[in-house]
């Protein structure tokens, strides 16, 4: 079956079976490999993308159910890698292996879009479905807080790496 999807603002067509999860349409049919496979059962969050701005687990979304909803993936989070979360992630060097980070960023972006100044409890709640096997949770939390700060202050461009000891305290 041919499906036409709106992905990162572009119309894209994939010829796949109707039960194919959006995750595999993105990765294998459309070549957008930023979205990751971790568990296939919505237990790890590595495959998180946005459907009309809501964070969803793309391993659980059959392509046939996407219809006209707008799909945003990590490749489309910003045009040039300057989303405040991406800046904060670079500044604090959040990743270790980095495999979960696309999902973390997409979950965090959906949170900040709705709650620009999240409390710790709100961060915990929004991010609880995203596992990090390297356990970079402290940097992720600091990264979300830093991005919220960048958004609140008109997002001056961070100038490279922080000279401090990084986030996570």
């Amino acid at each position, binding site marked *: 079956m041919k499906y036409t999807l709106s992905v990162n603002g572009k119309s894209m067509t994939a010829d796949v079976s109707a039960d194919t999860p959006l995750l*595999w349409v993105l990765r294998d049919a459309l070549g957008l490999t930023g979205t990751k496979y971790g568990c296939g*059962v919505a237990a790890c969050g590595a495959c998180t993308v946005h459907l009309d701005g809501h964070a969803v687990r793309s391993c659980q979304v059959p392509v046939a159910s996407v219809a006209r909803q707008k799909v945003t993936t990590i490749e489309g989070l910003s045009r040039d890698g300057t989303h405040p979360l*991406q800046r904060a992630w670079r500044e604090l*060097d959040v990743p270790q292996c*980095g495999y*979960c980070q696309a999902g973390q960023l997409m979950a965090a972006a959906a949170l900040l879009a709705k709650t620009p100044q999240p409390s710790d409890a709100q961060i915990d709640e929004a991010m609880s479905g995203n*596992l990090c*096997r390297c356990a970079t949770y402290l940097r992720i939390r600091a990264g979300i807080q830093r991005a919220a700060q960048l958004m609140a202050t008109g997002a001056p461009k961070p100038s490279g790496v922080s000279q401090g*000891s990084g986030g*996570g305290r």
Partner: protein
Amino acid sequence: MTPLPLEPAIDRRTFLRVSALAGGGLLLAPVLEPLDRALAAAGAGATGATALGEFIRIAADGTVTIVAKNPEIGQGVKTMLPMLIAEELDADWASVKVEQAPSDPTRFGDQFAGGSRATPGNWDGMRRVGAAGRHLLIAAAAATWNVPESECSAAASTVTHGPSGRKLGYGKLAAKAATLPPPDLQSLTLKDPKDYTLVGTPRAGVDTPAIVTGRPLYGIDVRLPGMLYAVFEKCPVFGGKVVSANLDVVKAQPGVRQAFVVKGGAELNGLLDGVAVVAESWWAAKSAREKLEVRWDEGPAAEVSSEGLAKRAAELAGATPTRSLRKDGDVAKALAGAAKTVKASYAYPFLSHATLEPQNCTARFDGGKLELWSTTQTPQPGRELVARTLGMDGKDITIHLVRAGGGFGRRLSNDYMAEAAWIAKQVPGTPVKLLWTREDDMRHDFYRPAGFHHLEAGLDAAGRLLAWRDHFVTFGEGERFAPSAGIQPTEFPSRFVPNFELGASVFPPLVPTGALRAPGSNGLAFVFQSFLDELAGAAGKDPVRFRLDLLGEPRVVSEPDGKAAYDAGRMRAVLERVAERSGWGRRTLASGTGLGVAFHYSHLGYFAEVVEASVVADAVKVNKVWVVGDIGSTIINPLHAENEAQGAALEGLSHAMAQAITIDRGRAQQSNFPEYELLRHAQAPPVDVEFLKTDHAPTGLGEPALPPVIPALCNAIFAASGKRVRSLPLSREGLRWG
């Protein structure tokens, strides 16, 4: 860049070095030998960039490319090793590009990720490579200006002639530098660490920009023209054989190109029997696999269960150890005369690595040659396994090293490489990406071995530890331990107790075991540091005081041959410091809240950690963790080091709370994250990290920060609630995260 001409012949010294790699033993001298050759291979590449040996290329515009030789699995080595070269090269880090090396020990020396070895094994060699480059560039500038080299200095990719102030960028000097005779690596003078401008400063990972924008990086992201996708079903029972399979049904599924039975061998870490399905998409392959019906000969492992293993372990515990590993003094006599004796039994379970990126490998077999894209931690043993499995010569196999979504020791085994290679050979000319499901990954791991310890100790009237006996019941056969199931006779508190006995009894598990981050230590630290806490209680002493008394005066304790050195002074220092940072003994804690302490030496690192936990009924909340480590004089990249130490501590909490692989009828009963829980955001406490810098060469950080946190947590639970945990995970002891 075009590979530089190198003699492909393997000389005797190289052969010896490769043998050492296969055996896991590593020495600095063999690392330097290929570096000398690599350096001698300087010359102009086809792209116009100039190569200074295998590790450094400098383009005419001054761009410096540094080759990162080791597999990157999240430990930061792709940033750290090039930093060492760039520091001594005096390259401007902002203009440095880092390139991942392929697997080629003749060009890059040892290439592997394991044992926290990258820093101690390369600290000297990589800096010398950089210093050699700087030496050549300065010599080129001096020759250009016709001045003495001693009047020239380098900084930020530029050589300056002091007296005249003339400057030349590295891009202008590279071509000339490449024509000069390379210096002897050993005779080079390295910088005084106080002059470092890069090493010791916080630097973001070189792949971080690609990670945060979702660019293809990982093994799972490899895409080649015309590529097919494969899944591989193995017997759910370890080592089971295929009797028959309904291949016709599978081949008739949409998108399927091939399905075949694979006849494997007996090596659990090699190619095993199974059924491969090759399709136009991974989803098609996986969907077709759901129609697959295989008749298995489950073999002898089908009888294995966790209950059965525990029962056998208990039987062995009741008998004399089959192996005596160490005997100091007279334990029986000391126990008979002790003022107090304490006995306890401890146990820990099998664990899975659960790398978030499931095992995968892309392979293309064409014209008798094989090309692999692999996340392996051990490329050279991987090459040897694949060559053996396919009956090929290792030199006909090219291995591209691709960033791994976590390693933790899982990718020390190369079973998935052998599978991908075998499958690719059935579809010559067509690249195939083999990707395991999460369920495959958890059911076919090399598990951290379970272990059982039966301990007895005696204290004198002053509360000093007089006698210690451990009967370790573990896996193995005869005189051999199963992978990662062993113990060293020098493991602490060996050599710190006058009367000491360590015995072991082994039995074969029929379950594949292997190294998980801080292998051995991740179980032993829990047992020994928890039991020491019990002894501190019996002695009526503060747990930190008791441990300091046990460590005794600062001194280095080693075997008569000088090996297995344990620096009591370094351990005392981290223990005293972590007590200070955590406010040990100086804070009033609320009822139901307690502090626990533990220390452990592994992988050349000394770590002491304190956990503050609150326990309300069955709910455990970790309020904070303090980590103090001594891994030598220099923290090469402090930005990553803090992250990695925090991650190690949090991973330890993850092990302790809820993780266990249990076996039933020869099968792992857990297959995905709902049954094998990782720590989540809300459960992650703050982790305070401090490194004590001491006058020792820097050592690795991947592993040694993990082990102490587990007993520190258990000891905190005891301090908070009076509940002594002697078996992991906590969830099976009636506890949960609060």
